[in-house]
């Protein structure tokens, strides 16, 4: 198995071999779907015969000796012959005709009958990769995961730094306590959640931040440093005094030694990180919607607001970016609309209604319900050219990779300031499909039984961090549950980290709930 290929390909690499090889890949190995080929012809692109659609092409891909199509079918590279590998039909052909090369129709590998093994010729590999990418694009699949191959520079670095850290099941990498610097648990709890956000961790540990800020006050650099501390393997608690100082500098409303709100800190931190990241791209964009920093990539979703005029039924739609979803709770002064227990959301997310306990999906259903804006809140309708009553409905247009739900437990109304301790049960796995704008559209088109795409995994989320608040509004304490390996949870209480059970996590009150998309696609 030599990476330099084999000498027997030279006989093949004559005349128009590259184009011939491409055609083989396009037609028989990495072929597109029936619809895309037809579309391609209609758009006046490649003049491919429409007849070469998938079902027909599948028919032509059979062994010329036995008619089977599932026995590791190979195509001869020198003539039009298909043969089974398993039954050695292609081997017979190779021997009889002295055609030494064949291609595996399933994976595109090139087999040499003289070397008696699959060979890897650089030029042919290149063509294979290109054709595969083209086919994926045609199918609308986009870029797929391919394993990492180190560059020369990276190999050099690896040789110069021989120390390696192996992640085993029980290792405590990434876990580290944080000293409380005087009512700073509101900051500590968020730091724990952020340092255990998988994508954010990967971004910082692969050193992707290239700082262009002149001063020493870049919060992204500090975040990077924080990740280094957390994943260093040190077990003593970290003292985040520099972080605290930077927060006081950039978010003055959070400065001071009083207890602050963890949710406010989260939003402020994301905002500062987002602003400092923007300086990275060199694009000091005036348009905040044009940012592609890591914060936006991970946390930013799109919330669609549809306002429907009750008279002409015209709909006015706006989409606003969001970093979190704040949900009202029953027991607050804003009425929690009476919802029947169960219904789409809950059965989908398998939540139990223990004696009528409110669930997260109940809160989401309430959040996305159509709300009638009363006669005192008429909207100017562009269709009717006058003020009319309307209904407003919120749905998710675009889901972020990390969805943060904020349960509004702190009530700050004119008269009272209090904490709402209502228990809200939340699931380990969450499906956001019922709350999507697209689901609402299909509901409106009369498809009440939503044809759920059973293979669509886009809206599935997994819980990975829970921030809890114990105590009252005046004196309280924040702690965080974080998920380390797949099913190992830990409780982070300032400097003290202890192992927690899934039950501990799910039974907790819940203030900020962090969910991560289960399946990630490349753009």
């Amino acid at each position: 198995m030599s990476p330099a290929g084999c000498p027997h390909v030279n006989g093949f690499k004559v005349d128009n071999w590259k184009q011939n090889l491409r055609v083989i890949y396009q037609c028989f190995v990495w072929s597109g779907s029936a619809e895309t080929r037809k579309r391609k012809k209609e758009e006046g692109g490649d003049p491919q015969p429409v007849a070469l659609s998938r079902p027909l092409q599948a028919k032509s891909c059979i062994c010329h000796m036995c008619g089977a199509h599932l026995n590791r079918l190979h195509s001869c590279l020198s003539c039009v012959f298909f043969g089974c590998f398993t039954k050695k039909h292609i081997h017979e052909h190779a021997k009889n005709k002295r055609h030494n090369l064949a291609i595996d129709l399933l994976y595109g590998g090139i087999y040499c009958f003289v070397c008696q093994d699959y060979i890897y010729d650089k030029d042919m590999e290149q063509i294979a990769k290109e054709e595969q990418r083209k086919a994926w694009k045609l199918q609308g699949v986009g870029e797929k995961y391919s394993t990492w191959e180190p560059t020369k520079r990276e190999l050099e670095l690896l040789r110069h730094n021989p120390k390696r850290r192996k992640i085993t099941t029980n290792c405590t990498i990434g876990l580290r306590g944080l000293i409380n610097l005087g009512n700073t648990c509101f900051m500590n709890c968020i730091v724990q959640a952020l340092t255990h956000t998988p994508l954010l961790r990967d971004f910082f540990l692969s050193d992707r931040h290239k700082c262009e800020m002149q001063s020493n006050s870049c919060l992204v650099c500090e975040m990077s440093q924080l990740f280094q501390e957390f994943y260093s393997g040190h077990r003593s608690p970290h003292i985040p005094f520099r972080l605290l100082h930077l927060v006081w500098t950039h978010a003055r409303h959070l400065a001071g030694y009083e207890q602050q709100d963890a949710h406010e800190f989260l939003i402020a931190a994301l905002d500062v990180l987002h602003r400092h990241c923007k300086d990275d791209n060199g694009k000091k964009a005036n348009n905040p919607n044009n940012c592609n920093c890591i914060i936006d990539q991970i946390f930013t979703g799109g919330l669609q607001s549809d306002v429907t005029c009750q008279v002409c039924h015209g709909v006015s739609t706006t989409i606003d970016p969001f970093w979190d979803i704040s949900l009202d709770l029953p027991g607050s002064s804003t009425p929690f609309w009476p919802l029947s227990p169960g219904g789409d959301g809950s059965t989908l997310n398998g939540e139990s209604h223990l004696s009528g306990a409110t669930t997260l999906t109940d809160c989401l259903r309430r959040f996305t319900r159509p709300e009638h804006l009363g006669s005192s809140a008429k909207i100017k309708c562009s269709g009717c050219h006058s003020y009319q009553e309307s209904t407003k409905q919120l749905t998710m247009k675009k889901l972020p990779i990390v969805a943060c739900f904020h349960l509004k437990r702190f009530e700050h109304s004119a008269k009272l300031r209090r904490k709402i301790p209502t228990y809200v049960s939340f699931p380990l796995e969450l499906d956001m499909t019922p709350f999507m704008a697209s689901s609402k559209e299909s509901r409106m088109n009369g498809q009440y039984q939503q044809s759920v795409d059973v293979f669509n995994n886009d809206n599935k989320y997994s819980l990975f961090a829970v921030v809890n608040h114990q105590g009252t509004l005046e004196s309280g304490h924040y702690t965080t549950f974080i998920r380390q390996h797949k099913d190992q949870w830990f409780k982070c209480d300032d400097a003290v980290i202890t192992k927690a059970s899934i039950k501990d996590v799910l039974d907790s009150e819940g203030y900020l709930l962090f969910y991560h998309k289960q399946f990630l696609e490349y753009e």
Partner: protein
Amino acid sequence: KTDQLYGHYCSCLFWLNHRLKELLRAKLTECGWRDQLKAHCKDVIKEKGLEHVTVEDLVVEITPKGRVLVPDSVKKELLQRIRAFLAQHAT
């Protein structure tokens, strides 16, 4: 009408062929099956020696093991998904 049916048939094939495969791939990666087999491949290579081992050696060793190692939970879930899909799309 036949055009419609044919189109429907093609798109069902597409979904089954691509989406189902993708789902299976994801499930097998998730449950560690892929890693297990990768580790087994490495063992075979070590045993036979890097210079002498062929793809065929690996195929012979890995295929039966791979079949056995698929967890029941994955099989069950795939079946469920296929049933649900067919229930929805059967005309």
